[in-house]
């Protein structure tokens, strides 16, 4: 990926992410998140992760965000007056965030080596990198146990969601 393309995509991603946090209407926040997830899928595609990019669009932008929008509309949430945390919390959060970013940039520029060398991202990839077949082979061999555990997780989540949404708490 050329630097210009990366910068454009990064700008779109950051604007979309800021939209999620700053827009006062929950529906607009959700749509901003959908845009962010789409641009993230483009970045995945350019990083030779075709299957992950497709899953990103189908699972995240498709399924999860539809669920979010469905709940927002079910609860009929209005654009409340921008409910923000107290000033002290906001200042502390901004301070901590800038400290974290400073640490990351410092680590990456100093600890550099192969990470700041662009050639690391230009080397040719093995055949079938990021393809469905390659990913499936890994899933059903080395990660088989985690894959099977995932099915239990999903069953538990389905049962939990149904029970929670159904029950009238007293």
């Amino acid at each position, binding site marked *: 990926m050329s630097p210009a393309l990366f910068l454009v995509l990064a700008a779109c991603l950051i604007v979309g992410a800021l939209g999620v946090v700053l827009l006062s209407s929950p529906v607009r926040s959700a749509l901003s998140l959908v845009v962010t997830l789409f641009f993230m899928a483009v970045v995945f595609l350019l990083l030779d*992760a075709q299957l992950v990019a497709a899953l990103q669009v189908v699972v995240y932008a498709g399924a999860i965000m539809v669920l979010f929008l469905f709940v927002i509309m079910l609860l009929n949430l209005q654009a409340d007056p921008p409910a923000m945390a107290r000033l002290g919390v906001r200042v502390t959060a901004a301070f901590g965030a800038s400290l974290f970013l400073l640490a990351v940039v410092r680590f990456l520029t100093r600890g550099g080596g192969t990470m700041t060398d662009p050639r690391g991202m230009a080397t040719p990839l093995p055949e079938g990198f990021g393809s469905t077949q390659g990913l499936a082979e890994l899933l059903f061999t080395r990660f088989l146990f985690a894959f099977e555990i995932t099915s239990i997780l999903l069953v538990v989540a389905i049962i939990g969601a149904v029970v929670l949404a159904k029950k009238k708490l007293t």
Partner: protein
Amino acid sequence: MTVVPLSWYLTLGAVLFTIGVLGVLVRRNVIVVFMSIELMLNAVNLVFVALSRHLHTMDGQVTVFFVMTVAAAEAAVGLAIIIAVFRNRETVNVDELTVLRW
């Protein structure tokens, strides 16, 4: 052709993750807090995919697959909890939900 070094992707991931953390800390609407968590998960996914490309191993992409599964399960259960809470308390403001606060 010039390409982007790995550190740019890691920096972008860190920036997006930080925006997500700020959303969790600053916003009071519990659904927006949830969306900020999804944003943080996606920032981590970006780092996984970039490192996967850098190291020429697909383990990172498999991990992204599992992260997506956990995110989907978390969204389903979390939104069910939000609906249950809203039904009983008529609010989604996290400052008003203080029963469990110490």
